[in-house]
């Protein structure tokens, strides 16, 4: 009796293991940090993009207003595609778009804005990439929706029409 149960048990156990591993193949192996967690925005000091003057984060972000912080760079190709959507978002004037220029050559960045337009209300610079880490970002482009000094949502990668519609829902 015991000898008959054992092969069945082995087959069932291997079947279960096979099923779990097979299911595991379908999962994405690329990790992305959580995007929906509410977090306080970091406190930092940096320089303004055009004037080069020192700015504090508390002077940029006011309570009761909705901001979209966009991390961009002139060398980043997806930023070019995204820029059009930022320009469109800025047309409605309901949201303040703040730019964070990431590890960029200032001359190239200025040319980038001249060529494609400037949707940003304010831009500050992150020369060595440490500010982006302070924000929990790991690449360009990345955008943060901010309300009451809290990050409501994080968008990793370029914005598209679908995401712009979602942002418009938040603004209403």
């Amino acid at each position: 009796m015991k000898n008959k149960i054992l092969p069945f048990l082995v087959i069932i156990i291997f079947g279960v293991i096979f099923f779990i591993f097979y299911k595991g193949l379908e999962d994405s192996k690329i990790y992305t940090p959580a995007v929906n967690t509410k977090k306080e925005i970091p406190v930092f000091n940096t320089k303004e993009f055009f004037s080069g003057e020192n700015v504090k984060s508390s002077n940029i972000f006011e309570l009761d207003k909705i901001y979209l912080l966009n991390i961009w760079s002139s060398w980043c190709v997806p930023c070019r595609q995204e820029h059009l959507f930022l320009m469109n978002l800025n047309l409605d004037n309901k949201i303040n778009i703040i730019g964070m220029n990431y590890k960029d050559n200032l001359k190239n960045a200025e040319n980038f804005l001249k060529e494609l337009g400037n949707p940003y209300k304010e831009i500050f610079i992150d020369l060595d990439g440490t500010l982006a880490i302070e924000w929990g970002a790991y690449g360009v482009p990345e955008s943060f929706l901010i309300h009451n000094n809290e990050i409501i949502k994080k968008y990793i990668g370029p914005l598209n029409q679908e995401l712009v519609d979602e942002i418009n829902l938040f603004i209403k």
Partner: protein
Amino acid sequence: MKFLRFILIVILLFPYSNINAEEADKRNKITKNLRCLICQGQSVYDSDSEFANSLKIVVDKKLQEGLSEDQIYEYFKIKYGEWILYDPGLNKNTYILWLLPLLIFLIGGAIIYKRFIVKK
């Protein structure tokens, strides 16, 4: 006199170099335990991506601010989640990871005990 002055400078500089070496060791140890999110599968120490290079600067800054190793791990855990650490702690998502080897070891031990030791 010149020689004496030289010796004095060497003696004065000696402890500083020692501190720097210790800090670099610590920096390397910490960055080896942080996962690069751009080139996944590589540690921050091994990677030369923009993200990893900035992260190294941040680790240096935090060390200079006097944060301990665990405090730095905690800082990155809050920013990017548990996944950035190569050595995850015990929590509800990782308890299987931690307890399964122990469980298998105990079951295996029990089988060996029953089969070979009790039978004798």
